[in-house]
């Protein structure tokens, strides 16, 4: 029970991977990849969480009050930027590939084989 929130990360990873493997549409596949990435958010969030603590913003509270870990939150922010940009690049590639071949199914794109 005490480790259950961590398992959300494993769940999202597996579910996203399932989506990628069974995908029939490049755009769908790319969105599933963002689900895989969201598993890393869940992991980092759970790791930085502290019981009986507040958010690490000391605007209205006294410095020294127990707060959750700000480092993982900074990592997550970086992670989110990475997500947007990689997704944007991938979507651009998928759109172009569709323009050239008229296909979106990752199983049918195969120009490169053997």
């Amino acid at each position: 029970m005490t480790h259950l929130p961590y398992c959300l990360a494993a769940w999202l990873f597996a579910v996203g991977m399932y989506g990628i493997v069974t995908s029939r549409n490049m755009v769908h596949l790319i969105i599933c990849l963002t689900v895989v990435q969201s598993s890393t958010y869940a992991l980092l969030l759970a790791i930085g969480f502290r019981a009986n603590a507040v958010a690490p913003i000391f605007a209205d509270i006294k410095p020294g009050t127990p707060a959750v870990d700000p480092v993982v939150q900074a990592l997550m922010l970086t992670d989110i930027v990475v997500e947007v940009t990689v997704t944007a690049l991938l979507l651009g590639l998928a759109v172009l590939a569709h323009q050239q071949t008229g296909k979106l199914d990752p199983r049918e794109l195969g120009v490169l084989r053997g």
Partner: protein
Amino acid sequence: MAAVLAALGHRIPRLLANALSIATAAAVGWMAVTLLLARPLVYWFSGWAVVAGKAIGISFAPDAAGAAMVAMASLLTLASLIFSSRYFDTVGTLYHSLMLVFLAAMAGFGLTGDLFNLFVFFELMSAAAFALCGYKSEEAGPLQGALNFAVTNAAGAYLVLSGIGLLYGRTGALNMAEIGRRLAEGRPDALVTGALTMISCGFLVKAAVAPFHFWLADAHAVAPAPVCVLFSGIMVPLGLYAVVRIYWAIFSGALAGHQADLRNLLAVIGVATAVVGAVMCYAQRHFKRLLAFSTISHIGIMLMGAAILTREGLAGTGVYAVSHGLVKGGLFLAAGIVLHRTGTVDELELRRMRHGVSWLAAPVFVGAAGLAEVPPFGTFRGEALMSASTQALGYGWLEWVKFGAAVVTAGAVLRFAAGALLGWGRTPDEEGHEIPERPETQGGHRHTPAVMWVPATALIVLGLLAGMVPGITSEAEKAAAQVKDRAAYAARVLDGATVAAAVATAAPVNAGECARGFGALAAAVLLAFISLRPQRKERRLHRLWRGAMRPLRDLHSGVIPDYVTWLLLGTALFGGAALMWVR
């Protein structure tokens, strides 16, 4: 220190002209050499260093191995920028900016001492690489290659990040030296092996090790030739470098009792990679794809060297990687010239047409000799270093696999040079898959500008000379000793200790090794000769070979879901094996 910072100053590459970008690459290279010659140092960004044993800021902790990688990266970038100055006709500044950011990312990746920072540079490198790979966006092939590349590498990156999360949850640190120190205090458990598995497999995706190698051939076959130079020559070895670095800096203390297990595991992966790469390499008729599979095979050889986990093994791997990168870079540039002149790199088509690039066979022959580990190539020196400790540890059979891989890949390159460029022999009825391709250049196909053939031959010659640099092996051994010494690394980064100079014994080159190198070349020539002369008797052999190759070819399906399934399978097997050690 100024060197590191100046390297960063160059990350503002915007609207740079050819000359400016070439100068930048050269400057970064010069700085890397300065770093290489300087003593190892630690640089803390933002001025936040260590407070009460905890690293607060981000540090660069360059040592000889990292600096050598950066020097290599800038040399290859320099060569490809010179090459492409006349290569693309519609070259925009976007291309130069991407190349320079790619270089900056590789430099940061090689120098950083912080695990999350390593991930950031990994992603920066990937983002630049995806875009460069899809550069010829008006064709279907490059787009598909870039998609395969991007999806598998993104999945690998998320594995790495999850592993970093696990380590942070355990140790509360992101600095590699600090994580290593904390992990060494505890017992290894499922978390340690899990983190090792996820981070290693994530980086091994970049290193294109079987069964994570599928993307590489797709990406290399379609990326512009000068970009391939960087992919094959330095980006892929950097993946291996990251695995070596994190193992020695982070996990070597906690897993000290399981060295033999890890050695076996990595050796098996290396063998699989070398064999699959070599066989697939031989079966190709598209020159760039052929070279791509040979890179996979050579990465397997390097992995076998690093897997031995000894100083000599690591040093040999380093020398091998540098020399291989130069030779392979030269070969890819040669492929670029062929494509520029004839509009194709397909072996059968080239054989049928009359082209004026027969002279290229000479540098390609020399390059093939480099792949066959013939003295005095750097690959030979590296191999000789590796083999001594491989045999001492009772892994002599690995040497035979390496020998075979070198022979087959060199043979395939020789076959291409003799068959396609010189037109020797008869047309083999070998059926590979054709990849429709347009020339990367427009106009001016009649001659080869000097900016194209000079870098191509220069790289191959440099690969040859790399083996003759006096003291290269002993310097490499010193660098390897630095990489291996986890305690000294931690003391340098966290306690500001100065590093004692490592001593190395220069191993003499023995005659047996030389004979081995020439033997490999002879065998490769023989292989190329046989494959160019299909006798009636051997027809059946050919058919048999094709039948046997069919399943292996089919595995390289170009289908992303397949690749991702392989990725998971490989990770699960690696993780399962690692978990067995600690149970």
